[in-house]
């Protein structure tokens, strides 16, 4: 079905992420899981199969890739459209249409399938995936999970024999991951060949027939279905992978009195223009100088609460009382610093050092030394003169954290800091958060990453429909 024969590929101008002498055979109907740390080459392997390499991403390629008897290098991408389907990582950027129906039928229309057949297929797919209620909606009104399911449907309509998923769960919460799991199971039962490059593994435990672990562009370990099921959390830890089971999160209800200083949120009510989503929190006490996790399903109001605490929503009347001072939205902007989910939005300057200096409010001669000290704390010294956008995702995030520290604001808010991160990077983030706590900051983390919560958070706030359903220290 799929055969990679001594394939070596290096991206043009980038040293990371290539593959070296990769040979791999995948039989029809197999579910193959590619995993390994960021930059190990698993995404590259996926791109070799769906033809984006060499037709879209340029670089040096040797060896051959054959899919369904076709030589990929000699086949145009549009001829592959009905053979290999791909679901990508970022639900925000993979849509061409602005409505769900148009998106689902997009591929079939491109290859000139008769309209009647497209519609029949669309309805069949929508029925099978139980997404009728998502039809006829605008893409911009969907949650990340819903978008990802539409992306799966739009691949399904072309009914390719092979489906490639490139880190599909990165931006999804547990509920959406369950849905994704069902879809993959459905594809498997239809006899599709499935290749998944992924960091989060637990949802594929029962589905994967084979697991390949890559390191520096080479396959270092291969496991079969039995071995995958036997993997313990200690095993995955040794392999540098995320666990195969989802850790449970429990609040402790024994000792709910907050020790030490308190941040008091009052009257946090806010509704978006659509009138549906929002938060309604009359009163919430949070411990200062702790790492506080805000969790809940997509749409429960996690990000909204974070934005309101930060003071980004002008219309919010709520106040935050800290050290005896009552802060309104505008004042909160001067006390909070948010590290956004997409840190690209908050990097402005031409070098990492400038980025940190931009945040320093008290302009003194020592600025540069201070900046360098902060960079050293975050292991960014060697990148000080680089452009922030030239860095990897984790380094960019640390740059944003560095400028947060430089701003000397007491509250740091993180919005989904670990989406799409491998185990090592997740741990790095967790260490960073602890460091910030030790520096005396209050850290608020919006996340659905149970592993991150387990590893560093002290306190948990669970939101449900915009209300705080749970607010307590994290138990064992």
């Amino acid at each position, binding site marked *: 079905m799929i055969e990679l024969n001594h394939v070596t590929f290096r991206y043009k101008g980038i040293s990371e992420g290539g593959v070296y002498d990769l040979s791999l055979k995948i039989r029809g109907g197999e579910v193959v899981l590619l995993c390994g740390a960021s930059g190990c080459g698993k995404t590259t392997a996926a791109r070799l199969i769906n033809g984006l390499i060499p037709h879209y991403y340029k670089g040096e390629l040797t060896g051959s890739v054959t899919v369904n008897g076709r030589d990929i290098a000699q086949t145009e991408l549009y001829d592959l*459209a009905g053979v290999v*389907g791909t679901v990508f990582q970022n639900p925000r950027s993979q849509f061409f249409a602005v409505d769900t129906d*148009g998106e689902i039928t997009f591929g*079939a229309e*491109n290859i000139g399938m008769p*309209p009647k057949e497209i519609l029949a297929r669309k309805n069949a797919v929508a029925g099978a995936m139980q997404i009728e209620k998502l039809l006829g909606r605008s893409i911009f009104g969907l949650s990340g999970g819903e978008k990802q399911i539409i992306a799966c449907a739009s691949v399904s309509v072309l009914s390719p024999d092979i489906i490639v998923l490139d880190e599909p769960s990165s931006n999804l919460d547990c509920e959406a991951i369950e849905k994704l799991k069902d879809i993959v199971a459905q594809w498997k039962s239809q006899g599709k060949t499935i290749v998944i490059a992924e960091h989060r593994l637990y949802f594929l435990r029962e589905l994967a027939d084979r697991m390949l672990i890559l390191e520096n562009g080479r396959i270092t370990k291969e496991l079969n279905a039995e071995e995958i099921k036997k993997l313990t959390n200690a095993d995955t830890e040794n392999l540098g992978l995320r666990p195969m089971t989802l850790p449970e999160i429990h609040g402790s209800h024994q000792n709910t009195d907050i020790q030490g200083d308190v941040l008091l949120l009052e009257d946090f009510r806010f509704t978006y223009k659509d009138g549906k989503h929002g938060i309604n929190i009359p009163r919430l006490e949070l411990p200062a100088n702790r790492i506080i996790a805000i969790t809940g399903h997509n749409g429960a109001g996690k990000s909204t609460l974070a934005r309101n605490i930060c003071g980004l929503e002008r219309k919010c009347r709520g106040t935050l009382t800290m050290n005896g001072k009552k802060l309104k939205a505008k004042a909160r902007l001067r006390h909070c610093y948010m590290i956004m989910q997409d840190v690209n939005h908050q990097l*402005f300057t031409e070098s990492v050092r400038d980025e940190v200096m*931009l945040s320093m409010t008290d302009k003194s001669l020592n600025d540069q030394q201070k900046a360098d000290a902060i960079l050293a704390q975050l292991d960014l010294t060697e990148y000080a003169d680089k452009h922030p956008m030239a860095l990897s995702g984790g380094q960019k995030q640390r740059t944003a954290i560095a400028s947060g520290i430089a701003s000397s604001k007491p509250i740091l808010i993180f919005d989904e800091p670990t989406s799409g991160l491998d185990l090592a990077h997740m741990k790095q983030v967790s260490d960073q958060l602890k460091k910030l706590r030790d520096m005396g900051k209050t850290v608020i983390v919006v996340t659905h990453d149970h592993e991150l919560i387990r590893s560093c958070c002290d306190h948990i706030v669970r939101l449900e429909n915009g209300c705080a359903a749970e607010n307590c220290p994290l138990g064992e």
Partner: protein
Amino acid sequence: MKALKLDPRTKLFMIFAVSFIVMVNAVTPLEWAVRIAVTAIPILLLAAEGRYASAIRFTVCYGAALALMRFWLSAESTGVFSAILVGYCGIVVQFMPAMIMAWYVIRTTKIGEFMSAMQKMHIPDGISISLAVVMRFFPTIKEEYAYINDAMRMRGISFGGGRYTKMIEYRLVPLMFSCLNIGEELSAAAVTRGLGAPVKRTGTVQLRIGAADIAVTGFFAASVMLFVFAKYIR
């Protein structure tokens, strides 16, 4: 009201008609009447999309601008304040109706519909793909810009430390990085689903000219003719 569904070609004609009538200066009462009637359409469309608040806000602004222009501002008014008022009235009266129309069309036209309509008008695929991307990108740019703006406010650099060049740079550069990234991923996702295949694209959206289309087209055609007649022929 949600049932209102117009053919993309009707919408295009609507945009042309509105921007034509609204942009050319009205002088006589008849011309003003036509213009106000035409401006009422975008207001109705806002309401049809459930944006009642925006519809009312715009109606009030429009009324105020009209009153200002009618009773206050004249050939004699001078000074900075009136210049700003003229600016405000100009935006509300001349650009807003066309902008609302453009917003309505972008919001209600599905890419599939648009592509089919372009194909029926024999526009080359390349141009319709590019135009479709432009349409899809306006909301994306808006979204991205909102995030960048938030980040700037949070860091207190909205005014670039008082330097105009920085003000522009801090906004434009991250926006361009974002758009490039999204564009790269968007292209990859589109080509794996056969965009650019050398076959005739099919469309699942059946375009049909309905009663509403005929009525709207008729209304606008009549308005344009009346306006042209009043303006240039009489």
